[in-house]
């Protein structure tokens, strides 16, 4: 592949990130009525059906099935990011692999859990409320309690950014923020156990702060520097996005 084509591919994949965020806001947050999500641990099965799935059935169905598509757009973006984390010899080291593996698995979770919620919405009048609630809770347990897949991505990315002082694409502060966001996820393990307060599924910490810091502490800065690096590469100037020496 010639360098100009490669540059265009990289730019297109770099834009997958913002497209994913925009798509997820539309499908998961807005159509899915997930800002905030229903506090399922504090609801009876009948309440979940009458106040959420029954009330917004069509919108949630469309939103969640939409997420099955846009959720996986996160994966190519993460892979491009991994390809930018090269060691001095141009190879991808273990930290890059952690970023890539975490990004792939996160992309899967971002699509798989909405598939479960979409099923709940589509079948909400055909199966018992208890089954709907069970599936709904299972979706959230997978979505939140497997936070380590994203934390692994963030730790690999953050550690590479901080430790590789020769790379000039990402500033060190962005790496520290990525690591910090990975740590902020820890209280997500509480969501199956609490039904009120900041650590509930719709709580201040486990919803607003976790999602907010992921967006503004990790995604926005890294996406910005990725776009800057890919779009800033002059035509034919280099074959790969290797760190400047």
């Amino acid at each position, binding site marked *: 592949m010639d360098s100009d084509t490669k540059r265009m591919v990289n730019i297109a994949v770099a834009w997958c990130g913002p497209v994913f965020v925009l798509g997820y806001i539309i499908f998961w947050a807005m159509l899915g009525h997930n800002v905030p999500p229903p506090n399922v641990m504090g609801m009876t099965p009948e309440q979940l059906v009458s106040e959420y799935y029954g009330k917004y059935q069509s919108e949630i169905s469309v939103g969640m099935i939409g997420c099955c598509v846009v959720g996986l757009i996160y994966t190519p973006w993460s892979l491009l990011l991994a390809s930018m984390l090269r060691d001095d010899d141009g190879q991808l080291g273990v930290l890059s692999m952690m970023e890539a593996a975490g990004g792939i698995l996160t992309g899967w979770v971002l699509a798989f859990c909405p598939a479960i919620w979409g099923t709940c919405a589509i079948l909400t009048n055909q199966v018992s409320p208890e089954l709907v609630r069970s599936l709904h809770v299972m979706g959230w347990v997978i979505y939140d309690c497997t936070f380590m897949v994203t934390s692994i991505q963030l730790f690999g990315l953050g550690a590479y950014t901080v430790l590789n002082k020769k790379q000039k694409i990402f500033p060190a502060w962005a790496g520290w923020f990525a690591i*910090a966001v990975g740590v902020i996820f820890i209280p997500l393990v509480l969501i199956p156990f609490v039904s009120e307060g900041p650590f509930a599924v719709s709580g201040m910490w486990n919803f607003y702060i976790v999602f907010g810091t992921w967006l503004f502490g990790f995604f926005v800065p890294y996406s910005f520097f990725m776009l800057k690096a890919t779009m800033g590469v002059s035509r034919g100037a280099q074959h790969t996005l290797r760190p400047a020496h």
Partner: protein
Amino acid sequence: MSRSISASQTPIDRPSPGSEGLWTFVFIDMMIFLLIFLTFMGERIGHLALYTQAQGQLNELFGLANTLVLLTSSWLVVEAVQATRRGQPQRVSQLLGGALLLGAVFSVNKGIEYAHKFEVGITPASNPFFSFYFFITFAHFLHVLAGMVCIFHFRRRARLGVGSAEYLTGLENVGLFWHYVDVLWIFIFPMLYLMGRL
């Protein structure tokens, strides 16, 4: 870059101890803890009775003991940095050993406190206060463990490392981090253990 400080340098001329990266980390980590503290305070104001009642179930003597342990440990690390500047590897090793021992005392104390809570049926899911209590103290405890690993590493390297600028900068970084862990605890202790009693 030489780390030596000439007598003619004013305090403003002198380089800050440690490296820029560590200062960046401390600043960002501080922002994260500030976010946690603000969320806690906001929730506490909204549910004052619940938080006050739950805070009464903590034993402030554990918190006080750990405050004294960390303060003493920080002082030992300061002395170790000074001993490094004077070129005294054996003294550095002794002081860091003391700091490490106090870190272990903190850890055991924390373990006993957690075990006692679990024994009486208090878990992170008991109520929002205890969710915060376990989250904040566990996040802080992870910092203590990380600090202990660093102190252990520099203690092992003391004999060969003392005298080099690289070792001094590294130990200054450890000292800065350890002071930060200490300062965090100085905020956590009154916020979690004392505020409900005022």
